[in-house]
């Protein structure tokens, strides 16, 4: 192709493109039929086999139909949390974006026929971001959904596989960005809820030594093997807490959390991490998850979910003497 013999960038890029193209090829073949082929090869062409084949095909057809219907109606996914509906308009382009959980509805305003002309009948992708705390240029939180915009239609909805909350844009491959908006209300609301939950949790924890409390999901209680019996923590809770003698102050880990507040929040879809600081020092991180009712609860303790005395010791090490 190039006259160059040794592999260089374009050759390596070619190899990678061939790899993904082959995967695309495979993906586009019917997966159900693909699985059937080896089985069909093993079957003998006997009358009873033919009958079995007919039955198998009928079964596959039923299964495929059921799966398709289930996918289209989104039955297999948990329902999107009934979070606040938000909307924003790209005034320059005359495009209104409405976001309701995972569903983005795009409405073209009537005074911009050129936008309708741009999208009409073309494949228009909607890209939205979830990770509002990501640094500029970090695209890990982006999700893109591709749809053909029906010719002449002024509105189209995109269903995302996960919650999107930060900003959205429409693209047409040959044109570039068609319109874009950000939803500041949506995520500033989430940040407030997260901060409130984490601050409440640390206050209760610091005063009662109950890491598993009203602001945590049941997963936290399981994580630390801690339960509350008659309002009091079990021995497992105490095992998780630092022994009083092991801290320089002679007081427990819970005590060290007293006065700590949320300083940093990172949100990614229905998950978030809140960093707690005290006297200018980061002392802990808690991970939160948004529940089906839209409430944020602490789901894990620690930045990586590590808990227990060892994790507490690690945290102390990270903080230094």
């Amino acid at each position, binding site marked *: *192709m*190039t006259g*160059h013999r040794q592999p*260089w*960038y*374009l050759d*390596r*890029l*070619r190899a*990678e*493109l*061939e790899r*993904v*193209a*082959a*995967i*695309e*090829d495979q993906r586009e073949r019917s997966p159900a039929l693909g699985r059937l082929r080896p089985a069909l090869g093993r079957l003998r062409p006997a009358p009873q086999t033919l009958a079995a084949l007919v039955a198998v095909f009928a079964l596959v057809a039923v299964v495929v139909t059921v799966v398709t219907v289930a996918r289209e109606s989104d039955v297999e996914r948990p329902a999107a949390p009934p979070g606040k509906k938000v909307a924003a308009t790209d005034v320059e382009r005359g495009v209104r974006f409405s976001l309701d959980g995972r569903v983005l509805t795009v409405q073209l305003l009537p005074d911009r026929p050129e936008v309708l002309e741009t999208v009409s009948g073309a*494949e228009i*992708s909607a*890209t939205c971001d979830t990770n509002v705390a990501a640094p500029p*240029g970090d*695209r890990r939180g*982006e999700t*893109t959904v*591709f749809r053909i915009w029906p010719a002449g239609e002024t509105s189209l909805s995109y269903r995302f596989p996960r919650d999107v909350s930060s900003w959205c844009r429409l*693209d047409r*491959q*040959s*044109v*570039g*960005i068609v319109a874009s908006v950000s939803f500041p209300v949506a995520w500033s609301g989430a940040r407030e809820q997260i901060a409130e939950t984490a601050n409440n949790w640390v206050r209760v924890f610091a005063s009662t030594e109950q890491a598993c409390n009203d602001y945590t999901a049941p997963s936290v209680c399981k994580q630390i093997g801690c339960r509350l019996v008659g309002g009091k923590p079990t021995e497992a809770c105490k095992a998780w807490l630092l022994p009083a003698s092991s801290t320089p102050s002679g007081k427990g880990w819970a005590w060290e959390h007293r006065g700590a507040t949320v300083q940093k929040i990172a949100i990614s879809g229905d998950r978030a991490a809140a960093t707690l600081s005290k006297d200018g020092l980061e002392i802990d991180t808690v991970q939160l998850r948004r529940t089906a009712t839209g409430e944020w609860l602490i789901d894990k303790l620690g930045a990586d979910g590590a808990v227990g005395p060892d994790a507490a010791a690690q945290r102390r090490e990270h903080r230094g003497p």
Partner: protein
Amino acid sequence: MVDHEATDRELLLKGDAAAFAVFYDRHAEWVLGFLRRRSPDGEAAADLAAEVFAAALSGRRRYRSENASAHAWLLAIASNKLNSALRSGYAERRARTRLAMRPVEVTEEDVARIDALAEVSVVVELLQDLPADQRTAVLARIVDEGEYADIAVRQGVSEAVARQRVSRGLAGLRRQWEKRV
């Protein structure tokens, strides 16, 4: 088996990996050269080229142009990606992400070769601006070193017309070149 004589349009609409590889071979160098001359460095150009071909791979079956050559189509994708990169400061990754492509590293040696491509691709771009009959004749004569008699037969014209097409094509290239330098 892929027909290496197939047009870009046929290769794209065929849609399989082997056909796309042939298409890639035809265009990879000029696309990379085109991007290099408009990008701050070779690495940025390589990053953009990967995104351009990922987008072309994703959109190959949607090639709607009646034009047998996909040069203009690729140029539109490349320009679009380039403009987006110039606006945002980094190359898009959408098409590559969609295909779950792995990053392809760029070595220092690659950068040097990419820089060299920037010069070569000028000629390729200028060729694309020529009328099709002149372009074919110039390529047949200069690149393939064909005889005028053979070129004439392949183009279904007299040898004199074939000579005239090569001559006019080269003159056109010279004019365009002078405008650029």
